[in-house]
């Protein structure tokens, strides 16, 4: 993070000039500039921040979300950006009404590292990233039934009884998490020997018999 200062990041003013009313609010907290952007323009804003030479936010530090205990407050999706060359940080937020659909566009097309970060936000908060190539749970197992654990309305010990949680956990096939597509061999599939391709196609695992 940059040194504590009350001054806004120059990126904030540049964003206002470029996007006008789509920049809803700018504030400085603990020396970090936070920019609230409308949901409709968030992908344009992120692309602009990454590709404008004077901004050059080439590194996506984190994508996360915040659900406040106050039920009236909207859920916030947070993008923490970093320009490695300029040594500058910027935090971009979108507010989502909890009654409406929790939809934001993916930024996977800008930073490939967003793939798993957005999956984690989906897993924990239920925010759907439109256009994401693989929108599945990542920390909890894929058939997890109880909801989104980091939402404030989620009970600490989960919705189900311990016996039901144990039963559902034991019913999961642990090997089902590793599909052929997830394994590195999938990328090399075409280069594999014919017999190995045949065995993989049959769903067989492990070494030769």
């Amino acid at each position, binding site marked *: 993070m940059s040194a504590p200062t009350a001054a806004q990041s120059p990126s904030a003013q540049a964003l206002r000039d470029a996007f006008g009313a789509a920049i809803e609010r700018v504030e400085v907290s603990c020396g970090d500039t936070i920019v609230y952007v409308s949901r409709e323009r968030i992908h344009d804003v992120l692309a602009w921040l990454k590709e404008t030479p004077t901004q050059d936010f080439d590194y996506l530090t984190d994508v996360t979300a915040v659900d406040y205990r106050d039920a009236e407050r909207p859920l916030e999706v947070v993008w923490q950006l970093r320009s490695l060359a300029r040594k500058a940080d910027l935090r971009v937020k979108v507010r989502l009404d909890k009654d409406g659909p929790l939809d934001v566009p993916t930024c996977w097309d800008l930073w490939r590292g967003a793939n798993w970060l957005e999956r984690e936000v989906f897993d924990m908060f239920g925010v759907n990233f439109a256009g994401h190539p693989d929108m599945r749970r990542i920390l909890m197992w894929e058939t997890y039934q*109880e909801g989104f*654990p980091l939402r404030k309305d989620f009970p600490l*010990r989960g919705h189900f009884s*311990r016996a039901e*949680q144990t039963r559902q956990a034991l*019913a*999961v*096939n642990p090997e089902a998490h590793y599909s052929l597509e997830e394994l590195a061999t999938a990328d090399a599939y075409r280069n594999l020997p014919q017999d190995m391709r045949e065995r993989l196609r049959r769903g067989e695992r492990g070494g030769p018999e």
Partner: protein
Amino acid sequence: MGLIATPPDATVVSSTSPNWVTTRLDFLANWARTSSLWPMPFGTACCAIEFMASAGSRFDLSRFGMERMSFSPRQADVLICAGRLPFKLAPVIRRIWDQMPQPKWAISMGACASSGGIFDNYSMVQGIDTIIPVDVYVPGCPPRPEGLMYGILLLMKKIRGETFTDDRLRVEKLVGPDGLYLPPERVDELSEPFGNSVSQTRSS
């Protein structure tokens, strides 16, 4: 053999008693089993660090014939769960336990493996005894290597008291048609909050 221990009821046997054979074979089998317990290490957290220290040269598990870590469950005798077990790993430890051949035992190492520990939340198994049967619980957060060794010695003591004519000891407790190996109310009872967790309510 006589240097290790004396059969507890050696004084009452006679050469004509059928008990004589059983007792001596029990002693022999138990002596062999206690002297080469091959551990299946299931380390998931900081307890695994203490477990590694126990296996290292300073504490030296090979004194108990345990230096051979069995990374294949099919050659293991004792499963040592060192660390907290999330629900996502529950089917994994269950499958490893099912793959271990009899005779087999389990040590639950540390507070989290034994009871869920500080993780009284949605993602953590509240004691691995809701997933697999456990023989020895080692308390501690994490237990020192001496604590783990005390647990191992207790397990050895337990094995010396076993008899292989008792088939009930070697019955596989499989997951039943309801998806649990214990009755659901027993799992709920074992997972009850206790200590400081009691003041945390279920509805956030």
